[in-house]
């Protein structure tokens, strides 16, 4: 019976990885995962996963920050009305600064939080597929496919001259 197989290859150069990924995708194989010390737009596009949800976090954070900035300033000046310098209680131009800073603050923090959530960070145990050199000078290309395909995939990967390839399952 046919089961699932994982083919793993490691490369020293990001551009080879890009090539490899492209031809794997031509094989119509989806389960691609790449590890490496750096990342480039080219490679991201080649892998072609949906855009990151982090941007939504940034947007929502920013909006919330802006609103809360104006809310606190306006509410507090009306809750405890004190006249200063003959200015109106709602000195909106002055409060814009607070609103702005709060927007930035919330947007930044929530963007970071978004990233952490979707990267499942922080965590103590790394993904089993990770290898020390992936953070140094090696790229790991990991393809999950039907075991029938595995041989074919292996050939494709070898054609890009990897440092090593091996298949399990």
């Amino acid at each position, binding site marked *: 019976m046919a089961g699932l197989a994982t083919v793993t290859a490691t490369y020293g150069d990001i551009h080879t990885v890009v090539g490899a990924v492209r031809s794997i995708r031509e094989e119509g194989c989806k389960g691609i995962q790449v590890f490496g010390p750096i990342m480039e737009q080219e490679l991201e596009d080649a892998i072609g996963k949906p855009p990151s949800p982090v941007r939504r976090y940034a947007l929502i954070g920013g909006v919330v920050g802006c609103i809360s900035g104006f809310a606190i300033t306006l509410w507090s000046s009306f809750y405890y009305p*004190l*006249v*200063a*310098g*003959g*200015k109106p209680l709602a*000195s909106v131009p002055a409060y814009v600064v607070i609103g702005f800073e709060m927007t930035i603050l919330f947007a930044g923090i929530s963007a970071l939080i978004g990233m952490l959530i979707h990267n499942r960070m922080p965590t103590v145990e790394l993904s089993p597929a990770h290898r020390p050199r992936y953070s140094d000078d090696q790229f790991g290309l990991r393809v999950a496919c039907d075991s029938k395909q595995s041989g074919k995939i292996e050939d494709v990967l070898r054609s890009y001259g990897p440092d090593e390839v091996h298949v399990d399952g």
Partner: protein
Amino acid sequence: MSEIKRRDFLKVLGLSGAGASLAGCTQEQGHKLIPYLVRPEEIIPGIPNWYASVCRECPAGCGTHVKVREGRPIKVEGNPDHPVNAGRLCARGQASLQGTYNPDRITGPLFRFEGELQPISWDDAEAMLTERLNSLMAAGDENRLFLFTDSSVNSLDRLFDTWMDAIGSTNRVIYESFDVEPLREANRLTFGQAEIPRYDFDGADLVLSFGAGFLETWISPVQYTRLFSRSQSFRDGHKGRFIHVGPRLSLTGTNADEWVQAAPGSAMLLALAMTRVLVAAGHAGDRAGAIRPLVEPFTSERVAESTGVDVETIERVALEFAEAPTSLALPPGVEMADRNATATHVAVNLLNYAAGNVGRTVRFGPNVMRRRSASIDRLTEAVAAMSSGGVDIALIHGNDPVHTLPSAMGFADALESVGLVVAFASYLDETAAAADLILPDHTPLESWGDQQPEVGVFGLMQPTINPLYDTRQVGDVLISVASNIGGAVAGRFQWPDYQTYLRDEWRAVHRDFAPREDFEEFWRGAVSRGGVWRDVGTQQVTLNRAVSGVDFDEPTLYGDDTTPFALLTYPSQNLYDGRGANRPWLQELPDPVTKAVWNSWVELHPDTAEQLGVETGDMLQVTSPQGSVNAPAFVYWGIRPDTVAIPIGQGHASYGRYAQGVGVSPLALLPGASDAASGSHAWLSTRVSLSLVERGNHLVTTQGSHDDLDREIAQIVPFAAAAEAEELAQEEIRQHPDALVETSEDADPKSPYRWGMAIDLSSCVGCSACVTACYAENNLPIVGEELIGQGREMSWLRLQSFYKHVDEGGHGDEHGGEAQPEALHNGNGDSSALHVVHQPMMCQHCGNAPCEPVCPVYATYHSPEGLNVQVYNRCVGTRYCSNNCPYKARRFEWFDYEFPYPLNLQLNPDVTVREKGVMEKCTFCVQRISAAKNTANVDGRDVADGEAMPACAQTCPAEAIVFGNLRDPTSRVSQAARSGRAYHVLSELNTRPAITYLKEVARESGEA
């Protein structure tokens, strides 16, 4: 209520009050508040009691109301009913509190044993004095007893006489440092009246002064300031004209419309020449005949040369004086009293007489009451007697001759050869320091007493606090000593104590004033009113024959051509003859003219300074034939190049921590010369030389620049312009009587009040009483010379003076931001054309206050009643508000300042003592406003106009400050704010101040 009861509860209050004050007014924890177990009658904690009394800081005898909280006097204010000061008080009067609460007071009787002053019990002290007196009388040497006292007329004075008489000594020496004997003598010669008349400034359209400092220290400054500003400030379209003749612009002189720069000692000749002009022009009417022969020789031409005043000026001024509807000429006073002072006074009398002022603006009848003060000759005799060992006992009360007499007279040395020197002093002044036995007197606030400053005015003093220390009233001492002596002497002193004696003395007043009234009633009324008084009619006088005997020789000054400068020593308006020097408020109060603090100085003209290569602050040595002193220079355009001036009052060798070693006393330079006719001290009698000792900034002054660079901070307009503007303004007021200067956004629309103030610069004479009143009311700390040098004085209210030229726009002229106008530095500026504008400057309580929006914590914000309030508890001390205050009215607590006991007893319980690190400023005395509102609320009404009054407005002798509600179109402040002279300082910043200034007005010659 009988006074015995009063004493009892004052005891209770003294204790509990002290406790309360310690707990209430200091930062430290752990003091016990002593509660009232049984509340003394008349006392509600938190509600002040007011006691009427008399100010004894100078001989003027102003009536006071003493504000007492929980048994502690915390503020002295003028007695509104009193004819002398009508509710106003000067800086020295305000500071009388610090006499009682002075940390350097003598706490009990002291006796000099083995050269050291040792504490001794009252019984022993009195026994010792008695024993000495007994032996004196036994030996028949009664006249080897001397008694030195001041010259005030009161029951104590009479007690002194009785006592000396009982002992049998004729050697009572009445000594007043600033006496009026030349005036008295001149009046005797001219009018046969050995009296000091009333001067009706308020009735005088033209005031011509030959130098008397009548706004500072002369005779009755508070009264004179009030009357002066009535006629000389711009009021409903009228303003008198004031011409100051003399070598120096004193504070009084700075208020003149014109300054005639006459040589020192030339007053007599000028007065005579002017009289001559006036008579010649036929203004003397039927009086001319008597006067003409006297003044004939003194032609303007002859006089012009020696007086440094040109003929044209002499004649113009003389005719102005004659043609003015009413006029008043004033004598030289103390600072200009030379060796021919009496003759000078006679000359001025003639001028007044010729112009027909005698009986109109110079009125005999309501005379000033002073005992005749001993002549220099008499004092010299006394000194001689003492130094020759001819004196066994010298009793000294009420003055400090060692400090106030010229050192040349050797009073100090003479005391050493006296058997027993007894000082009835409250502080260890120079005289007390030389005494063998010190019997400390109560301070006036602790004493019973009275004072008769004028004919028909009897002021009454009552104790306002239980004596702080083991002191005893001099009267009680004399009485008990007398009874100890026993025999005939005791027979004449039947009173148990001074208080009883005083009551008996007042039986005469009672008979005089209200014979039908029951005495107890009368007494209680007098005590609560602060005395009794009535108007006294004018007494007509005519020219006296004796006047023809007066020889008008030109006075000469000691010294030769090595001493080029005439030395002018003038009474310090803050320290009087030096008695104020131990009151830190008065040391901290900038001199109204130089703005210098905690020091003496030598005033010299810019030209003189240039010749010597001297700048303000350089240390100079001033040398006279008698000696020399070192004092920092103050370059001042307001003094003639041939004259230098040094204030009297500093340079104490003793007299406590605040006075000792501060400044110098010019008396070391004076020969102790006397005026020929009256024998009074001739202050203006010597010449001096100057030499530079050391460069550097030895003088601390509080004002940055006296030139407002045409920023229209202090504004001055010519009389015509002011009158025109005033007419329009009044018309406007007539048409819209209910219009408000205030707009609703400056305070909560629902509030009935927006508090505001109007300050009339044409009334303000710059006396600075307001500043000290503010210190007293608001617990302002004393920081001392060094910190003031760093700009850290805590004064919420500063009195700044700007030197301005007048032009149509009422602007100053343009010159650089130097400490004094450029044109004056190099001397070629026409300084007689300069006007000095005195301007009280404090928080303006702006409607759009720049300080408020910048405070990060709302420590300062705008109250619903339009006050700019400062919340000390909320303040974190960013000092941003001060940076953003264009008036620089805010002060910062740089340190925690000390109020050494018992000064802390004076602290006002209604005002927080601020901690280090907080910002503070003028509050418009918000605590007094609240008090007024409470009273109003109880009666269910709004605060009436004039009911709420800050300390500064309350005390202002010139009535220049008006405070009130800008929401009430009829209030005095609203009216003033609509005046034609009204302006806001730096109005272009749109800060909408609550303080409106009214422009100073200069009335030039010929303007009417």
